[in-house]
């Protein structure tokens, strides 16, 4: 154990560890369970689905509609809201409930959050292990694809079903962009678009991606529906990705939730970008 980790451990033990935690954001819920603080979680967000242990926990609303009454009724001694929930944060502050402010960021930010939550919940040691595990796994993925040609990739995070309309793509920042880079791809909008943005057909044609990688949280899509969505790209037959049949649609919450399962997501990105590479398994 390094000195830094020891210090964190000591600092974590020094604070009053919360016993009743309310987590509103799916990523935070996953991190809390991953670092062993799941037993203290007494309420979770309405959209939280993972891990399975949360199935019976009370739901307290989501990002835009948190239920302040239910939250207070759960008598939490730690609530983790999203930083944009200013009304909720003000109300909880007035109620004297301790808060941990969270917001999505980059891939390294996930590790920072894991460690900070570890400190805050008195599980700094376990959190450090989890963070290092994630770091090691991500490094292994990066290692596996290193030296390979990096396909120029269009990372689509939303569009209208069945057609190439209202296409939202990942720009050159954020954890999904980081996952793409780590998995051995080059974001076509790196440098030109920051964060996620709606892009035009013209922009896509001009970008001429080698690979189109689409991610959807919704796991209910059947293989035939996925095939139909992929076929929608035939509207732009000239894209190298379409000509070379390199349009991939991946579904699953591990692709869109910046929590510990991001390792799985990054591995799936790598598998899609470099199908011939053998990825390390754990």
């Amino acid at each position, binding site marked *: 154990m390094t000195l830094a980790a020891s210090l964190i451990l000591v600092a974590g033990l020094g604070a009053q560890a919360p016993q009743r935690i309310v987590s509103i954001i799916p990523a935070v819920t996953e991190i809390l369970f991953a670092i062993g603080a799941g037993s203290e979680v007494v309420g979770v967000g309405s959209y939280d689905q993972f891990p399975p242990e949360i199935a019976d926990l009370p739901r307290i609303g989501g990002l835009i509609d948190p239920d302040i009454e239910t939250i207070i009724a759960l008598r939490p001694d730690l609530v983790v809201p999203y930083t944009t929930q200013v009304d909720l944060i003000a109300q909880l502050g007035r109620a004297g409930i301790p808060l941990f402010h969270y917001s999505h960021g980059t891939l390294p930010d996930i590790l920072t959050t894991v460690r900070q939550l570890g400190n805050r919940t008195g599980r700094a040691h376990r959190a450090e292990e989890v963070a290092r595990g994630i770091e090691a796994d991500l490094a292994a993925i990066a290692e596996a694809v290193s030296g390979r040609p990096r396909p120029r990739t269009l990372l689509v995070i939303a569009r209208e079903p069945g057609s190439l309309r209202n296409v939202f793509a990942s720009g050159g920042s954020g954890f999904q962009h980081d996952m793409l880079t780590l998995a051995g791809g080059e974001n076509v909008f790196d440098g030109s*678009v920051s964060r996620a943005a*709606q892009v035009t057909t013209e922009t896509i044609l001009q970008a001429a991606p080698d690979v189109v990688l689409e991610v959807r949280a919704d796991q209910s899509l059947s293989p035939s529906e996925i095939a139909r969505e992929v076929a929608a790209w035939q509207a732009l037959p000239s894209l190298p990705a379409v000509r070379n049949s390199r349009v991939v649609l991946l579904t699953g919450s591990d692709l869109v939730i910046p929590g510990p399962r991001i390792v799985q997501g990054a591995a799936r990105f790598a598998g899609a970008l470099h199908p011939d590479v053998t990825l390390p398994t754990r």
Partner: protein
Amino acid sequence: MTDRPHAHASPAGVPADPGRTRIFSVRRRLALTLSGFGCLALVSLVVAPLIGPTPIALGRVFDSAIPFADNVDAQIFFIARLPRALAGMLVGASLAVAGVVFQALLRNPLATPFTLGVSAGASLGAMLVITFGLPMAVAGIPAVPVASLIGSLAAAGVVYAMATLRRHGLSTTVLLLAGVTLNSFFSAIIMFVQYSADFAKTFQTVRWLMGNLDVSSFQPIVAALPLMGTAFVMFATLPRALNLLTLGSDNAAARGVDVLRTQRVAFLSASLATGAAVSLSGPIGFIGIVIPHLVRLLVGADHRIVMPASACLGAAFLVACDVVARTAMAPVELPVGVITALTGGPFFLWLLMRRP
């Protein structure tokens, strides 16, 4: 003031008209107006595909020696820009004329193509598909436009049924009230479903509601064309009767207008054009109210001139707005509905202020 039926003295303040034999010809005014506004629409259609964030060489666009698949310039021109400009023309023309017709039918200058719930119905249909992924694709047409078209026609049907149910004839008052009520009702359902849907889908619905012309192929245009064509054929039968309807239905009927039939055709055609336009582009606001008023200001209120002029000006205006939408912040696209409202809103206010 005494009656002077045979004296040709002018009333105070109005100069006597020396050109008593001045030529008044609707045909000539129509030709003049149409050539002006038509040119505008044509110019917008020709120029819009030449403008964009990516420089393209026209020589390469039309160079048949380069295979289309390898010709990015041609692809940008024929896949990204030309269909957009065409869609903009059709949607702009449809919404502008539908606005004229609804305003005449309801005898209300504040009516828009969306007043009678047609767009709320379309939005509900689109939202249900986006949220629940209903399999409503028909003959290669994606589910969202199909569902929004069904939603718009269903809304029009409900409003029409309510306006005709209890009376012999069509009550425009009931039409207006039923439409406004249905609008709020559908909006409530939309909000309710959005509230229980996840964030990404809510966001997509909201984005659809802002309107978008990036059709990325000719296929959606071809699908919408028969509906819009039908609506425009019906529009063509309306102008003179609509002129008379603006004098009130008693005046119109007394001059030989079949008022009920005119109202029916007006309602159906305007609803059809609106439904088709909204299914092609999402609800794009302001065109249906700004363009008709602007045209009336320029050419008077005769519907034989107002309707074709509105079609041309609506087309040109929307195509121009769309050029701004796709270039202003390129490569990121702005919602075209934002541009129409940002330019149309202040302009409309200026119009209101300067009118006596």
